[in-house]
């Protein structure tokens, strides 16, 4: 791993066990500022668990997660909240609040944080919604819009606070290939515009190779390989090849 002098996120020897199953067995990963890093790996292989460690939602058994020089695995309360205020998170199902309209969902984080004057809130939220191409959908409830639209709203909500780091947990699960590409284009476009650091967990192979700056392969609880999309695609490592070419393992269930 080359790594830059000051990575935005550094994961060191992260271990996590749930019951008898050790999901993370010493994950090491460095993510550079403004990089778009995509973590791939098998379903149930711990990608989302890794992401939840970066967000401070899960405490590891061992290891550290350094973001902006602070170890989020040991932070609590207000110190953790201050770091999280720099985050934008797109959860797997969108995690939009059912009881609020689309526009209220986007307003929620900026209104509750009280960093902006009240008059700026609504234009800001509307702008964020327009950026994801849903300017007309503000009055609808999450249940009334399609899955693809919900993901877009979730992206708008994650970005409305102008985060420095954006985490995306499988933002394209359950979408058709055209929508997958449109979400990817949206992420790339917004990434180019705002220059945030992005960590995306994804299944979408080979589509993610077109958008990622670097790709990390999580295999058997460790980062098995990290590299540019070309390096990963050209890898001769059997585990990486099996995974990206979708070959069934001998012992696979």
């Amino acid at each position, binding site marked *: 791993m080359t790594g830059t002098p000051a990575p935005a996120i550094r994961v060191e020897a992260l271990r996590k066990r749930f019951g008898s199953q050790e999901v993370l067995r010493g994950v090491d990963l460095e993510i550079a500022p403004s990089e778009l890093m995509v973590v791939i790996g098998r379903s149930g292989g711990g990608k989302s668990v890794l992401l939840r460690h970066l967000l401070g939602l899960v405490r590891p058994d061992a290891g550290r997660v350094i973001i902006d020089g602070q170890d989020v695995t040991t932070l609590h309360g207000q110190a953790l909240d201050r770091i999280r205020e720099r*985050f934008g998170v797109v959860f797997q*199902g969108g995690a939009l609040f059912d009881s609020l309209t689309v526009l209220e969902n986007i307003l929620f984080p900026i209104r509750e944080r009280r960093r902006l004057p009240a008059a700026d809130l609504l234009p800001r939220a509307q702008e964020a919604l327009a950026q994801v191409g849903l300017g007309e959908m503000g009055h609808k409830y999450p249940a009334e819009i399609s899955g693809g639209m919900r993901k877009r709203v979730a992206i708008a909500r994650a970005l409305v606070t102008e985060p420095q780091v954006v985490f995306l947990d499988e933002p394209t699960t359950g979408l058709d290939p055209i929508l997958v590409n449109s979400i990817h284009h949206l992420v790339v476009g917004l990434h180019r515009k705002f220059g945030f650091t992005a960590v995306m967990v994804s299944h979408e192979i080979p589509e993610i190779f077109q958008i990622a700056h670097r790709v990390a392969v999580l295999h058997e609880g460790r980062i098995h390989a990290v590299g540019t999309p070309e390096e990963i695609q050209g890898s001769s490592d059997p585990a990486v090849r099996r995974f990206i070419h979708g070959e069934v393992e001998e012992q696979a269930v």
Partner: protein
Amino acid sequence: MSGSLVLDSIQGLGRYGLDTLSALGRFGVFLAEALRWAAVPPFKARQALQRVWFVGLRSMSVILLTGAFTGMVLGLQGILMLQRVGSEAFVGPLVAIALVRELGPVLAALMVTGRAGSALAAEIGVMRITEQIDALTVMALNPMRYLVVPTLVAGVVALPLLAWVFDVVGIYGGYLVTVKLFGMSSGTYFGQIRAFLDTGDIWVGFWKALVFGLIITWVACYKGFHVGHGAEGVGRATTEAVVLASVLILVLDYVLGSVLP
């Protein structure tokens, strides 16, 4: 072999005891944390009002219905029994004191448990499994403040009000049966209530309803927060919330009934 069997069962018992204790501990810690957040401004009044609406006003029809019939049954049974001993004049106080001290708070609480407690546990459970609670957390907006505190406040505010509505409707239900059906004079009915029902009874009912309101919402929030996986987990959390809240209400009714003056 039998030695290890004995040892195993002792270990099993010990583990069961420890698991129960730690569950109780988590349950208590959850409330303590909620109360701590309730003390830290800003208070989310809008969320609390929505919850009062949900727990309180939307339970109103079921409270009116059950209150009326409870009072009517009390009036009917009371007058039939008291007629045998020639003391039917006391049916008013019998209905009123039974309602105000016991049945109003308890039955209103059980109704709210069934209607709102289950719905709250399911709603919060769904928010948990669809990561809406995690979304609040990573927005640096504490779910205790935004979700749990307003719900607990709503329980504590709504239950005493609902219990009073239950009491009043029940007393008029008793009036309907004893005065309109059995021909007792309404002066006797209400006059005897005024003579025997004192403010102490009303306070007992108030404290009970307040505690039950806290129990219902506390259990519902806790079960919703600690939901298992998927739809089955939400279903189980809902059932557990209703059963646990109902049992706690009945147990605490006895405890409070014997402790309060």
